């Protein structure tokens, strides 16, 4: 084939591919499309909007696994356990792994990676050309039950979500992907691990529920739930509470993450 014909055919294909991707018709492998929506924050300051518009985005169907994270630390040595700086990850970073490049028997490849700090999760997402989801994006996606975009009235779903908080943490975390997909096709937002989000440290509760009714506009509402928009949604309370207890370099044994991507 003539060079000019080959080049122009390739250019045309690339153009079509680019056009196709910019319309977001096919999500990237392993991700699902979460379309435009509205999220009502559980906690908000008086001057903050009651509703947040969530623009459509892609979200990982599964949390990032040990296998996925292994590829990352192979490629980027400064995020290996023996090399990471303490300011970016505390002493529990990848504690269950057998070695820098060996997850070992306690961290099977298909199990969500945990004991990673927010800095590490963010670095992984950047390495993949993606990012961490925001609280609004995560909570909006997580509101969906298997059959509805907003699972609030789905009592079966609510009960299953609550049951996770009553069950003890298992000695060995199960593999990712075993749970039922929600309305958007995303799995394991509930029932597996807590997950990092990009802005985990907005809307904080302090340790003392009594002072959470105070005048500080950033700190709203404790157990009295006087500032909360939905007092029945106590799993959301607990997620907010859990996020508030974290610092960016913390590693927690049942805290993992997944990535998001703009269209």
């Amino acid at each position, binding site marked *: 084939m003539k060079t000019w014909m080959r080049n122009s055919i390739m250019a045309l294909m690339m153009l079509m591919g680019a056009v196709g991707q910019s319309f977001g018709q096919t999500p990237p492998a392993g991700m699902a499309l979460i379309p435009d929506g509205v999220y009502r924050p559980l906690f908000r300051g008086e001057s903050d909007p009651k509703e947040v518009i969530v623009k459509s985005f892609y979200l990982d169907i599964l949390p990032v696994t040990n296998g996925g994270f292994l590829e990352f630390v192979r490629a980027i040595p400064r995020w290996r356990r023996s090399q990471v700086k303490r300011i970016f990850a505390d002493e*529990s970073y990848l504690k269950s792994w057998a070695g820098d490049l060996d997850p070992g028997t306690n961290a099977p490849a298909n199990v969500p990676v945990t004991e990673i700090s927010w800095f590490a999760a963010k670095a992984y997402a950047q390495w993949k050309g993606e990012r961490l989801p925001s609280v609004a994006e995560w909570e909006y996606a997580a509101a969906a039950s298997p059959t509805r975009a907003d699972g609030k009235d789905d009592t079966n779903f609510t009960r299953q979500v*609550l*049951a996770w*908080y*009553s*069950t*003890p*943490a298992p*000695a060995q975390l199960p593999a990712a992907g075993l749970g039922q997909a929600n309305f958007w096709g995303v799995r394991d937002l509930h029932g597996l691990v807590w997950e990092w989000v990009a802005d985990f440290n907005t809307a904080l*509760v*302090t*340790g*003392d*529920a*009594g*002072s*959470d009714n105070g005048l500080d506009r950033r700190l709203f509402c*404790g*157990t009295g*739930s006087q500032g909360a928009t939905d007092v*029945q949604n*106590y799993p959301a*309370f*607990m997620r*907010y*509470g*859990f996020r*508030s*207890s*974290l610092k960016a370099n*913390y*590693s*927690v*044994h*049942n805290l993992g993450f997944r990535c998001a991507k703009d269209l």
Partner: protein
Amino acid sequence: MIIRSIPVLTALALLASGNPSSVYAQNEIAAPTNLANLIDPGVSGVETAILAQAPNVPPPLKRKFATKVIVNLEVKEVTKRLADGVDYVFWTFGGDVPGSFIRIREGDQVEFHLNNHQNNKMPHSIDLHAVSGPGGGAASSFTAPGHSSQFSFKALHSGLFVYHCATAPVGMHIGSGMYGLILVEPKEGLPPVDREYYVMQGEFYTTGQFGEEGLQGFDMNKAVDEKPPYVVFNGAVDSLVGDRSMTANVGQNVRIFFGNGGPNLTSSFHIIGGQFDTLYQDGTMTNILHNVQTASVPPGSAVVVDFKANAPGTYVLVDHAIFRAFNKGALGMLKVDGPSDLLVYSGKEVDATYIGKAADAGSETEKKVAALKAEVAREITSNPKIADLNKQIQIQKGKTVYMQTCFVCHQPTGQGIPEQIPPLALSDFLASKDKENIIRGVLMGRTGKITVNGKTYSGTMIPLNYLTDEQVANVLTYVRNTWGNSGDAVTVPEVAKIRKESGPPPANPYE
């Protein structure tokens, strides 16, 4: 001059060296590990607190000075027995419900470490009611799993204080078992006793009913409605029963540190068969009551009770809101061994049969008996001989009344006083008037002129309404049948009727 200033310079050099251990080495106090650990000059020495699991407590403190106390308290989420066949995921301080008992002294400086086990799911914090500061420590102890928080406080007040988790939603954390007691002994300590025990009441809001088997979850709706299926001592049904009972001997003084974690219900703490010889009301060491039967312990409060075991047997501790004790688990036992003193308590002395007097009112039997009695009464009144005998009785009784009251005016033989008091003997006036008139005259008095046996009298007879119906009936029957008079008996109902119809007599009959 330089030689004299050498000690000053040395001291300054030591202080300036910034090495705290060199300055304090002679007092053998551990060097503070960071600048936040200030040294209080009123406090000497360091020790690590001995913690104990219910129903035991750490031993009484012997030291007579304030010290620095290091407390290490671990939060652990554990699945264990709530009742036979029933499991629950408890969130605990120290691995058990209630949490570990902490024992310190007024004035101590406490360095508190809250450690959240890495296998836990939830973040936790602690609010100790002994702490004077924001959140009781909760603001400074909010801890993610796999992490530890440290804060320090001074025990400014003596007392028996509750501690609990304060992480949102607080009711769920407390309702899952996160409460315990910290005792701040007064400077002079507590009076010694023979046995000390630790009991703490709490509710559990399970998704299933009481006794429903399997692993139970937390039911927020029941918690908000304050309707717990379980109200228990020390975190489980039967935790202080049978082999796990508390024990003592006759004559021993027993002390119980009793707290209430709630989260919702006030306990009416009572020991069946005993009294609290001494009650430290609301956990204060200064408001002491004696000889109390039942102590009110709100959620978030505690009491100390001392009592002497005077008689052997099993003493049952209860929440006297009694359905909680017998249907929800708020029950524990103290077994007292030893010789009995029959004067203090004899046990059962007599067991005999007993037959009550009357049938129940309103029963068929009672109605039949009433009807038969009415027939008997009719038979009697219609029998003339009996009627006559009754009249004779009235006459006798009436004579007594006459001799107490009427004879003063009408004279003992009823002859009256000429021109002043009319006679009653052979009185045509009495014979001519009907009974109602006669009765009314006695009750209301008489004024104006009357003519008796041809003579006129215009005096005043005062009202005798202070006599009872029976007295009036009897005295009139007597008068109408004595001194030549004859007439039938006057009855009580007749008098009562006239009294009711007439109303009260005039206030001043002499007007």
